[in-house]
């Protein structure tokens, strides 16, 4: 009996899968377009941005941190990429690199404040979220950047796989997930990340450079937000200073739905991909039903609280 239950994945892992199936069933009854292959392509397009944000977010949450700035840092990155290319006439590859660099630097700044000044991640990233948002608005004058060179929208191009069109961006996202999954599972630095999140004291005493692990995690998370910026530019074909506002919460929701514990040290990165798909399916299905965007945000808010509560309760029982 106890053997059987230890082999079954915990409720926290099964819950999201059940939620996904129920939601998909519900939406396919509500809208006959939901199960179409075009719609599936659309969901993947939408998931790729939140999905990549969720990778960075997962790494941070695994260390028992949180990053509220992810969506805003991504928006800043996308404005840097597009404005540098369009307004400054920079080569789009260089402009993209600049965007990635800016996002990584924001991540590094978060990491430095968390490790060197030992501020709580919640407050640090609440601050940098507002700073990134303000810089985005000031630098772009709140204007959308248009007429992008084709290079910047490369990841928006699609590949036909049977009936479904997969964008290069979505394929890239899946590759990133695979890479990070292997890193976390199979490498010493990956295991150290779990150790730091699960028991920072044990990690320190066994000689793991915990502060360096944390700093690296925040900086790398910033890099992932930069990649998400690249993907959102490719998907929308513009540099949008208003981007990232819903993606911020969506990314955190995806991680939590995917079963990663907010207390750190527990979780599997592929769960976050599942979580991102759930968030994408909800948003997509609700849109097809004609539910206004603000209600979708309302539902996402409820979803994240439900997921955290389920996680908490199922852990308490075990």
């Amino acid at each position, binding site marked *: 009996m106890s053997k059987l239950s230890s082999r079954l994945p915990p409720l926290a892992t099964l819950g999201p899968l059940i939620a996904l199936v129920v939601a998909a069933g519900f939406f396919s009854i509500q809208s006959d377009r939901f199960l179409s292959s075009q719609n599936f392509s659309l969901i993947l397009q939408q998931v790729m941005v939140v999905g990549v944000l969720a990778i960075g977010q997962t790494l941070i949450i695994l260390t028992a941190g949180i990053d509220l700035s992810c969506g805003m840092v991504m928006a800043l990155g996308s404005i840097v990429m597009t404005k540098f290319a369009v307004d400054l006439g920079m080569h789009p590859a260089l402009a993209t690199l600049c965007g990635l660099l800016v996002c990584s630097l924001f991540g590094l700044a978060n990491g430095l404040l968390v490790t060197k000044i030992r501020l709580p991640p919640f407050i640090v990233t609440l601050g940098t979220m507002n700073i990134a948002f303000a810089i985005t608005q000031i630098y772009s004058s709140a204007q959308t950047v248009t007429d992008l060179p084709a290079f910047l929208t490369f990841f928006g191009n699609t590949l036909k796989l049977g009936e479904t069109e997969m964008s290069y961006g979505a394929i890239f996202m899946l590759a990133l997930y695979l890479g990070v999954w292997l890193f976390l599972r199979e490498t010493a630095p990956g295991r150290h990340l779990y*150790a730091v999140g699960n028991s920072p004291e044990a990690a320190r005493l066994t000689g793991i450079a915990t502060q360096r692990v944390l700093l690296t995690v925040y900086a790398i998370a910033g890099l992932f937000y930069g990649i998400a910026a690249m993907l959102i530019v490719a998907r929308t074909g513009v540099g949008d200073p208003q981007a990232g506002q819903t993606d911020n919460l969506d990314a955190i929701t995806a991680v939590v739905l995917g079963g990663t514990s907010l207390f750190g040290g527990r979780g599997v990165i592929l769960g976050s991909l599942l979580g991102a798909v759930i968030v994408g399916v909800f948003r997509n299905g609700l849109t097809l039903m004609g539910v206004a965007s603000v209600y979708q945000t309302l539902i996402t808010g409820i979803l994240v609280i439900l997921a955290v509560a389920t996680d908490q309760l199922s852990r308490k029982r075990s």
Partner: protein
Amino acid sequence: MHNTTTQNAAASKPLVFRATGLVKRYGQVTALDGADFELRDGEILAVIGDNGAGKSSLIKALSGAVVPDEGEMYLDGKLVHFKSPVDARRHGIETVYQDLAVAPAMTIAENLFMGREILRPGLLGKLFRAIDMKQMLTDAVGYMDDLKIGIRSMSQAVETLSGGQRQGVAVARSAAFARHVVILDEPTAALGVKEGNMVLEMIRRVRDKGLAVILISHNMPHVFEIADRIHIQRLGKRAAVVNPQTISMSDTVAVMTGAKRSEDLPEDAHA
């Protein structure tokens, strides 16, 4: 019995770890006031003392957790200065902390090798620092068997273990990597009778592997059952080193509390 012969054998053994005149002050408080310390090869030395006797400061100095203001430490006859616990570990001194320093959600094998993972041979290990989980699992079985800790799977999470088994994981980790000394801080404090005895048995096996063991404990019966010698710490100094074979428990407590002076003890009580 054979205990006495072990005792005599131990007496002739060389000193593996020695400290002289250790001083540690915290502001106005003098925690260590010229403390001496001697650990012989292959013995279990219990360190006892009342609260505030400087017992934990002594252990922290020996394990590298604090740097003493004065005094010298010699490991295998060589002068050493530990800057951190990691530094002491590099010198072959392993410490089992009271809170065990294990990550509960991680597996036994991962905890045994935490921070010292075995990497895969070749490019995978060198370039990506990929871990060799198979090798770690195999070695983990060996380490746990060495101490006769009967746990079936090394890939089960530490949080699924009993208190004594968790202690076993921490002790096995120390025994596996120590080259000279294992320091155990209150290893039986949170355990019931049965599990406490299991841990004592484990500590004996660590000594029998040839390592010197420093045991900090409040539990007098445990100390008397297992220690080869007892270091009594009082008022920041070493008050006496006694032989548990020949001294009574009440005399030991009397020295610890200051009711009796070391000089008042019978001749054969000293070790």
